[in-house]
């Protein structure tokens, strides 16, 4: 894999079942086959519990398929070791979560620095890059603020800056505007669209919000763990 260059991602007959063989068995994803071209902007929509987040977790190597194969640039990656998957997440994937998931004991700057520190980027360079990223998302001057001092919109901006820290090729966002008011949501969407275009990264956004989905060029609709429709804008 090459950090910064978006991987071509492919799912071949992928299923994810939780509690397999138990009475509580849940088939979250059923035999999904998809292919994402590098640099695409996709929205994934569907009712709650249809498997959107499971799909995102598999794409971001947070979880492993119970059947089928997940490939990045033709290489099977779904069942690699924890260590390898962690390295791939660190170098290739940027996550943006609905609930931001900033570390409360770290400042905005330190949160953005975290992935770079794990990648052993020298301290002065990661300081400089983290500051530049915070400025890029409109948070210049808020570097020393702790998450509890930030508004929801600001927290999500920090989370986006953190997701971009290691210049990933694949950006995965799970309801990125789910906890924001409409003004902040629109600003965050503008920001996401801009950073995707600047970096030519693949952006996959799970959302319930039609305004968010409208920004994407390809639209997946999920139902009962499968793909109900796959539409690309003309």
């Amino acid at each position, binding site marked *: 894999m090459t950090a910064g260059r978006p991987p071509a991602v492919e799912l071949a007959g992928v299923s994810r079942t939780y509690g397999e063989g138990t009475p509580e068995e849940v088939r979250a994803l059923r035999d999904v086959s998809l292919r994402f071209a590098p640099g695409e902007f996709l929205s994934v929509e569907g009712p709650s519990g249809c498997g959107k987040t499971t799909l995102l977790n598999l794409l971001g190597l947070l979880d492993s398929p119970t059947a089928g194969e997940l490939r990045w640039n033709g290489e099977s990656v779904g069942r690699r070791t924890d260590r390898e998957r962690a390295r*791939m997440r660190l170098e290739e994937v940027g996550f943006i979560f609905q609930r931001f998931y900033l570390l409360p004991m770290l400042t905005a700057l330190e949160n953005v620095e975290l992935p770079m520190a794990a990648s052993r980027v020298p301290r002065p360079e990661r300081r400089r890059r983290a500051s530049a990223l915070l400025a890029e998302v409109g948070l210049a001057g808020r570097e020393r603020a702790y998450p509890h001092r930030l508004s929801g919109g600001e927290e999500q901006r920090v989370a986006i800056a953190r997701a971009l820290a*290691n210049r990933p090729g694949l950006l995965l966002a799970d309801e990125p505007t789910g906890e924001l008011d409409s003004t902040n949501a629109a600003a965050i969407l503008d920001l996401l669209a801009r950073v995707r275009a600047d970096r030519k990264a693949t952006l996959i956004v799970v959302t319930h919000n039609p305004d968010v989905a409208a920004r994407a060029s390809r639209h997946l609709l999920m139902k009962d763990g499968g793909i109900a429709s796959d539409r690309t804008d003309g």
Partner: protein
Amino acid sequence: MLVPLSDLQSLTNYSNGSGTIVPDAADSIEVAVTGAASTSPGTLASIASAIQAKVPFYSVTTLSQKASELRSAAAVLTGFYLGLSSVGLAIGVLFLALVLLRRVESGRRSIGIRRALGLPPWRIAGNVLEEGFVLAASGAGLGVVGGYLLVEALASWGSSTVREAAGLAVFSPIELAEIVLGLVALSLLASVVAARAALRVDIVEALR
């Protein structure tokens, strides 16, 4: 060689002249053996046996036997204190492991976030080990300094018995350093348990 005084009086027919054996408050008496016999364990043993045969209801021991008994008693006492401190240490290490496990449990979300971002497993485990090390080293340091200050205070302001006992305390820097190092090493073992728990945190579960 130690023989009860009354037995020796019987053995030597010592009396106050009226035929009555003189009672004495002392409970034992030393019998000195001179010459080559004093350095021959075999001769000493045969002398002790000869005396013992005359006073079968009392204990006759050689000095080397007595020294051996004292050594055994000291070993029992040392073993007792060692056992007691081992139990204390085990409880401390167990407590540290439980504290760290509790911290891992309450920090599941934070661990999940770090792992989701791609921080390598060794780094997650390293954080837990580091925390255990800091706790153990601080505890050991505070314990040593606190113990020293307590003994000093008792030696200065305690009752005469306490002052006397406190005066017997020996602070050997090397031994203390060894104890601290041993304690920290044991604590790191306890931290490994918590580090393993941190590595088993399911990312998807933690972020739910």
